[in-house]
């Protein structure tokens, strides 16, 4: 039986990918970010999970607004990393496990979570920006990813509570997979930031800390918040933090926070956290 052994919360700011590709790991302005991922990368190297399930969002790359799925699960042996306007990144395609992805799709749909599936489409920074900070990519990625995209771009988007329930359903899917796989669930996005309008550049460190504390101790509280609450407290695009709640749903019950790094340098509060079931 497959098992969820932990959870990771991480920002997916595209500039993390740019800084990574430019080799800025030791640049004093960037080092606090990259160093903050080291304990998580070490934990992954030690635990050797077979799969990372990514709750992430597409940024109108894989899908366009003419047909924008609320929840979509990727199926494939591999997933190309998308060109988002600046050309291809120097990274190998991410690896997938077709049987595992299909099992999750079947389990979710039979569990009344009628998820869309996609195949043979590139994936953007929603997954690809944090991945090389978590896993080495040379000579190849050490495991597979299961990408689950959540619409946080075009309203109506799913409620915080719905995302939490998706995580609970994912857990049932994982735990009904016959192979003994070790799985880590990753919730991406946030924390406070706004990237559009005159309010661009908005942050709220106090709220970010409150979010991180409630996330461990009382996630129920966070599932009750409306999108407007997230937008007001953390900036418009911070509403994507509801994807962390999908990860929390998959780790339902008591959890321990093993690591937290918070680095608010320019516009997004870049955060990475690591959790294990208590």
């Amino acid at each position, binding site marked *: 039986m497959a098992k969820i052994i932990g959870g990771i919360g991480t920002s997916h700011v595209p500039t993390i990918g740019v800084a990574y590709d430019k080799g800025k790991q030791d640049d004093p302005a960037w080092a606090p970010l990259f160093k903050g991922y080291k304990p998580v990368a070490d934990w992954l190297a030690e635990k050797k999970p077979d799969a990372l399930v990514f709750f992430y969002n597409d940024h*109108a790359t894989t899908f366009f607004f003419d047909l924008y799925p609320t929840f979509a699960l990727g199926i494939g042996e591999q997933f190309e990393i998308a060109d988002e306007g600046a050309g291809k990144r120097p990274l190998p395609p991410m690896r997938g496990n077709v049987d595992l992805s299909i099992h999750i799709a079947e389990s979710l749909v039979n569990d009344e979570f009628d998820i869309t599936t996609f195949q043979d489409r590139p994936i953007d920074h929603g997954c690809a920006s944090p991945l090389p900070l978590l896993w080495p990519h040379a000579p190849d990625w050490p495991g597979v990813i299961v990408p689950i995209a959540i619409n946080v771009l075009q309203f109506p988007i799913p409620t915080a509570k719905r995302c939490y329930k998706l995580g609970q359903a994912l857990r049932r899917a994982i735990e009904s997979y016959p192979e003994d796989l070790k799985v880590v669930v990753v919730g991406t996005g946030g924390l406070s930031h706004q990237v559009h309008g005159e309010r661009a550049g908005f942050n709220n460190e106090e709220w970010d800390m409150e979010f991180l504390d409630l996330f461990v101790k009382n996630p129920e509280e966070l599932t009750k918040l409306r999108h407007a609450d997230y937008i007001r407290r953390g900036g418009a695009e911070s509403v994507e933090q509801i994807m962390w709640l999908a990860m929390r749903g998959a780790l339902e019950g008591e959890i321990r926070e093993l690591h937290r790094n918070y680095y608010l340098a320019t516009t997004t509060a870049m955060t990475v956290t690591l959790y294990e079931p208590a």
Partner: protein
Amino acid sequence: MNPQLAGLDDLEGTYVFDLHTSNRAMKLNRFLWKMIGTEARAHFSKDPEQAMTEAGLSDTEKDLVRRQDWIGLIRAGASFFVLEKFARVAQRTNLEVYAMMRGETFDEFMATRRVPECR
């Protein structure tokens, strides 16, 4: 009104991208979105007017694109996430686009940041 979004009317400088906006600005957003394709980028660089006409942009939209009026494009219904694809083509970083949307120079904007060297 979507009850998940109610109560944001007084929040300035925020333009929620919902299906009303998306439906209204579909052509503009599709034009910006296509910049993830090498062919669309090459076509736009070679003949921007032709590319905009083919995409069915209105005169107002064409003008906003010509002037790279980022806040104007947002107000016209562009999603930031396709706008940033066009910013790559226009050789602008996101930080520069944020500054312009706020009506600040790049240096003014960066002076408000905690680690301005982080770029």
